[in-house]
């Protein structure tokens, strides 16, 4: 046994020795999110930065429905049936809830690549399997065969990933979105894998609501004018109905059209993006190209799109950004085999230290002398909690590299008036009247235990 002085370091002292910037609190990932999104309620609610005409949509729905309940319902309840407000109420709730969910749900945003991942992909691109000495720019597409169809995966320069199939980068939100359908200015958000079913529910229920209000307003006016008064008198008595008629008349066509279009898309398991580009309709190639994602059965397609499992949000808005100390431990509780060597109390000390250390970012305790055979076991488990401090760019770097301003609380959408630009909708839009109040998605953060949050 050599003469060495071993310092037994107090585990309490290990527990996160405050770095120089003690006043800095841990930031949540939503605060450093690089895309153009807004977050509310401490990251629980996500929306696009450009709210589009969301307030207008909301105003239209609320106004029309409000007028309906206030002016039409009493008359119709007296003269027809009491079911009318009930049905209207149910439809209204459906519309509002589904709209809020569409607007404030993560559509399926793919987080950007970590620096290591990006470097790994770059390596693959720079060394293609073919010749690497040619001067042409390295290929930025990858081909994969899905269901006997060749699908090209494009490289996204912003997110530094090869986009999975059906994923597209939304320039408004500056995010890659899975199963990207379109960016809808009426709901002020992208429509993608996670919120497509909400969007579909919204436009379908809105179609019913609009039609219902239109019918009720017409009936109301018809009943009033039937009493020998004439239509003009009826309109004078109930001008609200006239307003409702106008609004509903102009919106019902586009909303119905949109519902029909999306019903077709659902049945064919297509996205608006694919339909517009004609990816599977054979426009680009002469050969028979079919949709490789379709189950070739309408029912199965509908079920998989609308009733399929709800995928989790991948962006972990409420998670904490790893501290800038690049040493990050995994809170894995390790059962050290060395613990079995109870004879050696120093080993016990080691075990205790290691367990404590596994909870602290730094590991600076000394190792008491231990029997040689115990050490290898200890050593083997150590690597996972003793990363080298130097190098690894904390996630924040990756997260911050293209951050625009991190968004703090924004509870209200500032409508930049009616910017109805850029919607890739085939038909002219209609719909959405948003309103909000949902704190949805708070469960998303529960998914990920910070078990392996980047040992760097």
């Amino acid at each position, binding site marked *: 046994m050599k003469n060495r002085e071993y310092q037994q370091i107090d585990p309490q002292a290990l527990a996160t020795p405050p770095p120089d910037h003690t006043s800095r609190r841990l930031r949540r990932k939503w605060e450093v999110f690089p895309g153009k999104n807004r977050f509310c309620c401490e990251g629980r609610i996500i929306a696009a930065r450009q709210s589009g005409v969301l307030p207008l949509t909301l105003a239209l729905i609320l106004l029309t429905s409000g007028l309906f309940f206030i002016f039409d319902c009493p008359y119709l309840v007296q003269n027809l049936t009491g079911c009318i407000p009930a049905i209207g109420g149910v439809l209204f709730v459906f519309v509002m809830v589904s709209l809020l969910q569409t607007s404030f749900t993560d559509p399926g945003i793919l987080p950007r690549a*970590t620096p290591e991942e990006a470097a790994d992909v770059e390596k693959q691109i720079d060394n293609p399997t073919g010749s690497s000495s040619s001067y042409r720019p390295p290929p930025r597409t990858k081909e994969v065969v899905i269901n006997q169809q060749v699908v090209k995966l494009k490289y996204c320069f912003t997110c530094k990933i090869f986009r999975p*199939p059906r994923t597209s980068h939304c320039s408004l939100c500056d995010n890659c979105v899975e199963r990207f359908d379109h960016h809808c200015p009426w709901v002020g958000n992208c429509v993608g894998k996670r919120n497509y079913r909400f969007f579909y529910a919204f436009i379908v229920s809105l179609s019913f609501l609009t039609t219902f209000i239109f019918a009720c307003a017409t009936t109301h006016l018809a009943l009033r004018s039937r009493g020998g008064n004439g239509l003009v008198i009826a309109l004078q008595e109930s001008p609200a109905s006239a307003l409702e008629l106008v609004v509903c008349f102009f919106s019902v066509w586009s909303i119905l059209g949109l519902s029909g279009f999306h019903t077709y898309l659902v049945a064919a398991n297509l996205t608006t993006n694919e339909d517009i580009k004609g990816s599977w309709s054979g426009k680009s190639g002469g050969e028979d190209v079919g949709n490789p994602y379709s189950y070739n059965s309408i029912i199965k397609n509908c079920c998989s799109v609308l009733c399929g499992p709800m995928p989790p949000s991948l962006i972990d808005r409420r998670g904490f950004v790893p501290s800038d100390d690049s040493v990050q431990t995994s809170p894995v509780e390790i059962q050290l085999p060395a613990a079995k060597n109870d004879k050696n109390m120093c080993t016990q000390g080691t075990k205790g230290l290691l367990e404590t250390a596994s909870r602290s970012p730094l590991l600076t305790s000394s190792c008491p002398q231990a029997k040689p055979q115990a050490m290898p076991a200890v050593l083997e488990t150590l690597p996972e909690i003793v990363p080298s401090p130097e190098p690894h760019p904390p996630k924040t770097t990756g997260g911050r590299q293209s951050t625009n301003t991190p968004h703090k609380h924004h509870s209200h959408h500032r409508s930049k008036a009616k910017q109805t630009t850029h919607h890739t909708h085939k038909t002219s839009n209609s719909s959405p009247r948003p309103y909000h109040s949902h704190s949805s998605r708070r469960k998303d953060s529960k998914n990920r235990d910070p078990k392996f949050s980047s040992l760097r």
Partner: protein
Amino acid sequence: MATEFHNLQELRHSASLANKVFIQRDYTDGTICKFQTKFPSELDSRIERTLFEDTVKMLNNYYAEAEKIGGQSYLEGCLACLTVYLIFLCIETRYEKVLKKISWYIQEQNEKVYAPRGLLITDPIERGMRVIEISVYEDHGSSGSSSGSSTTSSSGR
């Protein structure tokens, strides 16, 4: 493997992150979550091929179970539809339950199989379900040589 260490500070430097290996997604079956089982060359000297493949296949099975479209998912979907999807706020979906199982499985694999070999698997959910990131640690104290390419992937710094 060195048998004595003076203090863990030295040890920390001894076990340093050498490399990260990324297992990419396998899209041949469509958009379902599935990872390639191709054995990366960087891990050649670190772990047996069968162990690695078993881990990846097990993960693929878990993900397939989570994304399976069948009776239970239809029930969940229809119920959700009727409640205007508010049910997602209240209950834990099957997908989330399976993700927890996956987390647990990865932790177990790390403890039993990977950590003893100086490797560490990161749960794919932390990487947007795009890759399985395997961190390769180098123990300088050992007589082992560095594995594969030792390009430290710290280019992002």
